[in-house]
């Protein structure tokens, strides 16, 4: 009698043990996969659009094959239509032009003379589209290239879409010097809970060209220029009330590097909503735009943002 009780007990424990060994109660977070859901990382250049004529095929490429509002790396490949081999092109200029419904034309921060990458035989440059294509205006790319001593021109209308990845956000504003600025985030495309190298492009609308920009398209190329030797002070914080104005340590302000872009370091201590609070200083150290935000920990209160900031999410 007692032995059978004993055996029942043993079986009971063994069953318990088996059930336990079989599974954890709650699954562990698949950290890599989870971040993939929030941000789609685009690493691959795909064709956005192309122009084919009897002599040459011009293919315009961008990451994921889409042009977004904000910073875009752009590649242009030119082939002989007949032979389907890369053409010997000696130079290429690239100019996006936005035409509003009123008929006004303007451009955006942009690399006008593209660089030739001889190894992979394409032209490379960038454009910061300042608005999306829509009912208020449309974008067209004005491309000129030279083969031998012959120059070819083409105009191609393209769609500029909304950037869904907030880590590549941009902002336009007028500084205290009455100049118009554009700040566009370039990297990281997919941040980590880690030290992240933060890269941004900072551009200024050149005053000699009125914003109405009625001049010929040839001068629109000069509408923006990269600002030199500025400083972009950084204070990243989580705006969520429950996070109480949480910030991170060891961040570095963005300063200009040899590539003309502004480089700094941002640390994200956890995933979620973050605000990059900025203060833009000119080379003399004068504040162009941006305000200091409170540094104290205030649980339950939504974090105050600088008047110059970008919201990101990952």
């Amino acid at each position, binding site marked *: 009698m007692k032995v059978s009780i004993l*055996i029942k*007990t*043993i*079986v009971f424990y063994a*069953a318990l043990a088996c059930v336990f060994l079989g599974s954890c109660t*709650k699954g562990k977070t698949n950290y890599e996969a989870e971040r993939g859901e929030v941000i789609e990382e685009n690493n691959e250049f795909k064709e956005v659009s192309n122009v084919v004529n009897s002599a040459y095929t011009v293919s315009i490429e961008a990451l994921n094959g889409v042009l977004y509002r904000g910073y875009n790396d752009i590649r242009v490949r030119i082939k002989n239509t007949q032979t389907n081999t890369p053409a010997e092109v000696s130079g290429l200029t690239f100019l996006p032009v936005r035409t509003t419904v009123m008929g006004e034309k303007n451009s955006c921060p942009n690399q006008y003379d593209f660089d030739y990458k001889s190894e992979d035989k394409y032209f490379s440059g960038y454009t910061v589209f300042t608005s999306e294509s829509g009912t208020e205006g449309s974008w067209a790319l004005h491309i000129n290239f030279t083969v031998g001593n012959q120059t070819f021109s083409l105009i191609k209308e393209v769609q500029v879409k909304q950037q869904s990845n907030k880590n590549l956000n941009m902002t336009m504003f007028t500084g205290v010097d009455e100049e118009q600025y554009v700040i566009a985030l370039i990297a990281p495309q997919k941040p980590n809970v880690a030290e992240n190298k933060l890269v941004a492009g900072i551009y200024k609308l050149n005053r000699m060209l009125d914003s109405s920009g009625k001049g010929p398209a040839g001068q629109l190329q000069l509408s923006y220029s990269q600002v030199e030797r500025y400083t972009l002070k950084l204070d990243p914080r989580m705006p969520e009330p429950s996070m109480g104005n949480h910030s991170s340590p060891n961040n570095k302000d963005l300063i200009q590097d040899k590539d003309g872009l502004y480089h700094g370091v941002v640390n994200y*201590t956890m995933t*979620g909503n973050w605000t990059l609070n900025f203060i833009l200083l000119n080379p003399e150290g004068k504040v162009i735009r941006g305000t200091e935000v409170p540094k104290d920990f205030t649980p339950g209160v939504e974090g105050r943002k600088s008047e110059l900031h970008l919201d990101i999410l990952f």
Partner: protein
Amino acid sequence: MKKLSLVLFIISLGLDVNGQIVPVKRDTTRRLGEVKVDATIKRKIENDMKMAVSVDEFLASSDNISFIKRGAYAWEPLLNNMSTERSTITIDGMHIFGACTDKMDPITSYVESNNLSSIDIKSGQEGNMHGATVAGSIDLKRRSTPFGLPQKIGGAYQTGFEFNNKQTFNLGSLFYSTDNFVADGSIAFRKAGNYYDGNNKEVLHSQYNKLNASLGLAYKTSPLSAVRVDAIFDRAKDVGFPALPMDLWLSRAIITSASYKQLFEQGLVKVWDTKVYFNAVEHYMDDTTRPENLVHMDMPGWSTTYGLVSKINLKKDRYSSEVQLNVYDNLSIAEMRMYPQDRSKQTMFAYSWPWVTTRFASVATNNSWEISERSKVNLGGSLGWNYNYSKYVEFNWIFHPGAPQKKNRWLPGLHASYELNLNQFDISLGTGFGHRAPSVSEAYGYYIYNSFDRYDYIGNPDLKNEISYEANASVGFKTEKLSIAAKVNYFYINNYIIGRILSLGSPMNYQSVGVKGYTSLNKATLFNAAVNVGYKILDNLHWKAMFTYARGKDDEGGNLPFIRPLSYQTSLHYGYKRLGLRTSLNGDFAQTNYSPMYGEDLTGAYKIWNLSADYTFSLGKFKSVFQLGAENLLNEYYSTYADWGNIPRMGRNIFTSLKVNF
């Protein structure tokens, strides 16, 4: 997974059947499991007052153990006034690591008093057999039934009720013993509601609910060898932690091992005992019962350990020695996920333990020579290797840019002691030196909220080894009626690891007031003293008393936190025929040497008076004991120096218990 479970289930069924049909041969040449070469004092799981104690209550009666209490359950044992990172806590030599970053699941919470036979506490470097330590070691010895008991089947059942927190408990154990097969099992249920403090006020969120079961099967493979498999399953559910902003929803542990023991009748080597083990702990917090919380947060944790312990005992004439090899691999993972008020928004996620692997291997030895009838020398040492790997090291880089992802450490330890017996006096002198590696939290922890000082703690992978130099001495005097023993020890610790306020960063947990980083103090010192007195007033009237004193200082002469103030326990036991009466008084003096820097404030003195009576009788043919008693009879309102958040302790508690042995 389900398939695997099923297969395992069938295998286990098979095992049971095998267990049953093992041919019962009469073989009484030797009883295995009775061999005890090491001369450590094993303590029975019972304290002066109560026969149905929890593991925590039992440990509390030891003079070098104190506790940090976050509620009524899962107290963190402090050995020599040092926190659990500084001691090694093992179950039969097996390393197990809690899965809670807030240390709400010390190893002692995964066992139950009815599956333990004794607890082996060693102070300082003497405890380095199981791994590198500073404070010492606590080894929980699992109960194991010897082969060939005269009584083939037996067991015990114990039940009870405690009135203050309406705790009911049912503890049962069974054994089956033949000459070459043994099975023993135990099961324990405890369920308690909220307790009431000395002002008769309910302490919310202090309930708990625990199930613990264990099973051991042993088979004698030859007259001098045996194999044994053991498993402990523990589940705690709905455990309140009044001192914390959240409770425990569920924690589960499975602790398994398979061992082989070989005895030798001749030669230097007497016993060789080898064990492989596996244990897994999961721990899930719950804050949904705390509406005051601004943020809903999930904090799951997992800890998985594989290991090997192999030990030989040597003895020749007046020399005896133990050599032990320890190897383990642990993976600790803890996550935090915060939910914004608008639940549709993106959650916020981080690892508080970013998948930290710890691998450890050590060889340790302890040797003793009886120089003469009266004196003995002990010499021991260990050399350990500790390896850490942080999978998501980018979390650690936020505060410590460029810290290495992998880290190797060598951990030497040495100790020596001399014991002398002069008539009625026992004297011992000892010294030791040892390193320990930082714990997972100390090295790789990330925003671990400590609700005692209300800081978020950040680990530092580059912390140096903590190096301890210790000296200890004891004097004992014994006559037929009187026994007095005094013990002191002194630790001088270099690179003492402790949290210091960081000027960097800001808190993540909304209750927190700032960020602390684990740093090394240049040095810290700790002094512990204890005096034990026993006196036989009459043959059946015994008096015992114990005093402890401790002092801890940091490198600037400031106080270290969690150092017990002057404390005392005194008890009187009277036995008359089948009746036993006990009364005891215990308390602490005011904690004047507190440390405001680490969140402590002045804790006042308290004294607790307890009373109990037990009666032994026969229930049919079974020997039974009934006990009735009261703790904190005067219903004193108090909290101790180590009570997290100064939560009041339990007020008057009347307890009853019935134990039947069969």
